[in-house]
């Protein structure tokens, strides 16, 4: 496990260096002055400009510039947003939790619905249920997410008016911003209408979360189906059957556990996919998250926000990736090292 951890941390370090280099070089690739792209200060007097260039060491070699940029990032200074002239780190601190909340709910939803369906398809292999589930899955991951979002708004918000179509919570509720994750904030607040607020927030999250969860959910169906089929063909399942265990016992005690472990491995990759879908969905549902903010800053040519936002978003994706790798290794001894069988 130690070697595994060191290797993962090594990969993490390598990737972080790569990401910061990419983010640093973006400021040169974007149009305009690199120093202003990095700092985001557009209305500077000559004196301030000199101060800034000392800060970012633009007179020195490119390595020193990168080093000072790294120092700025590590101190949590991501520069100012070019359009609003507010510090980006506070903006991101306000917006990122909303995205985390939405994508986590969507991930949970896609796993809770997708994995059992995949298992059912594998157990009923080559029967009607299998074919129906597979066809639904095929349509599910072919459907463009923005179109699905619009249809969901049309059907559930406009025609049926069951669920709200935009925002995170109704403006009537005043919830103090503590962690940024709405549900936790509501539970922490001492508002008299806590439960109404909770209910309202859940109503708001249902539609966007379902829309985001569709494509990853159908991929989980396929992953669960293949891994279950693989497990059912192994010799230990045959041994269990020879021992005289009933079909239910084999499935619940042996097959599901082993199949689940294989799926967890793919969660990290699917999460990256899910965050991208969340970015598009946030635009449609006016969700106050980092994806909408990032796309708006592309419209406004706010280069400082773009490169800082990308850095934060890709760090977030990568941290989740590494975390799922650790969970997978903790659950599956075979992934840690090759000593245990092979």
């Amino acid at each position, binding site marked *: 496990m130690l070697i595994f951890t060191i290797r993962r941390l090594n990969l993490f370090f390598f990737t972080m260096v790569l990401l910061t280099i990419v983010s640093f070089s973006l400021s040169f690739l*974007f149009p305009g002055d690199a120093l202003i792209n990095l700092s985001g200060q557009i209305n500077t007097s000559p004196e301030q400009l000199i101060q800034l260039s000392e800060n970012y060491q633009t007179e020195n070699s490119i390595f020193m510039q990168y080093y000072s940029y790294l120092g700025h990032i590590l101190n949590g200074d991501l520069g100012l947003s070019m359009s609003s002239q507010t510090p980006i780190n506070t903006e991101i601190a306000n917006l990122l939790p909303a995205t985390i909340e939405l994508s986590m709910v969507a991930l949970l939803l896609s796993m809770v619905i997708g994995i059992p369906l995949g298992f059912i398809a594998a157990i009923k292999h080559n029967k009607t249920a299998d074919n129906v589930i597979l066809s639904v899955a095929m349509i599910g991951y072919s*459907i*463009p997410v923005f179109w699905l979002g*619009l249809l969901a708004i049309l059907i559930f918000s406009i025609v049926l008016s069951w669920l709200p179509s935009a925002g995170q919570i109704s403006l009537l509720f005043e919830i103090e911003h503590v962690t940024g994750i709405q549900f936790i904030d509501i539970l922490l607040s001492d508002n008299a209408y806590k439960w109404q607020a909770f209910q309202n927030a859940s109503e708001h999250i249902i539609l966007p979360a379902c829309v985001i969860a569709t494509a990853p959910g159908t991929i989980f169906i396929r992953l669960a189906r293949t891994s279950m089929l693989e497990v059912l063909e192994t010799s230990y399942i045959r041994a269990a059957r020879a021992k005289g265990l009933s079909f239910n016992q084999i499935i619940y005690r042996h097959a599901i556990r082993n199949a689940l472990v294989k799926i967890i491995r793919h969660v990290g990759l699917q999460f990256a996919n899910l965050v*991208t879908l969340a970015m598009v969905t946030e635009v449609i549902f006016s969700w106050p998250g980092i994806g909408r903010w990032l796309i708006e800053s592309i419209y406004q040519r706010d280069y400082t926000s773009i490169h800082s936002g990308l850095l934060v978003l890709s760090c977030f994706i990568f941290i989740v990736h590494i975390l799922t790798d650790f969970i997978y290794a903790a659950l599956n001894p075979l992934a840690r090292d090759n000593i245990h069988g092979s």
Partner: protein
Amino acid sequence: MAREKIYQEEEFPSPFLQLWLIFRKTPVAMTGFVCSIFLITLAIFSPILTPYSAVESNLDMLLLPPAWDDNGNLSFLLGTDDLGRDMLSRLMSGASLTFGLSFVVVLISLAIGVILGSLSALTSGLKASFLNHFLDVILSIPSLLLAIIIVAILGPGLSNTLWAIVMVLIPQFIHITRNAVKEEFSKDYVLASRLDGASSFRILRYSVFPNIIEKIVSQATLAQSAAILDIAALGFLGLGAPIPLPEWGAMLKGGIDLFYIAPWAVYLPGLAILFSVVATNLVGEGIRHALKVHKES
């Protein structure tokens, strides 16, 4: 045509032909294949086939519903949008933008990716290990996010979107070619031709490529469905095709404002995207199924 066996000669179809013979027998995959051919024909010949111009507006025919509606007009089969442009013509020309361009994008990135992948399969050591790490990092970033980054650097526009998607798809092809070539190179028949004195490039050309082409084609269908969705998503976000162009994603975006009055301007382009992605995915599924059957037989 029935073939009679006159001579005691055994025929060995090439791996690709064998795959096609299996592929032909799955009706669902063939449906997808026919739909793809239909879309490709539409993409090529849409300037001749469209009844009206895709960008010309018809001011006395604004927001006409499709012909099956009571207020519809049969000369505008799928209705018109808010500027009186014929939806059918726009959708048909959109096929050459969204589907046709995604096809071109996949071909370009396939060519670059296969060349780089086979070159990298022939190298080993530190360079290869660095490349592997680098590819792992790139592949873990989702394609749409990467495309958005590249578009942010290049600036919005259709051609920039296409270059962005080409760049995004290349690593996938490098990865799959590299692994496939490495796998083939460790097999005995490659060793045999190597003992005959063939150079690495000759082996690649005559021995390896005919055997890995189906893997690359299967990856290409995956890439194509991703490319269609990415082009449409960027168009929808307003970062791709500019306004008058009938790109399906951009059309969808244009229809949102009138969503309630003219829902057909939103659901028709969406259906077109869905149709083309499903067709591509069906072909891909068919190829993968054929590969599996071929391996087991």
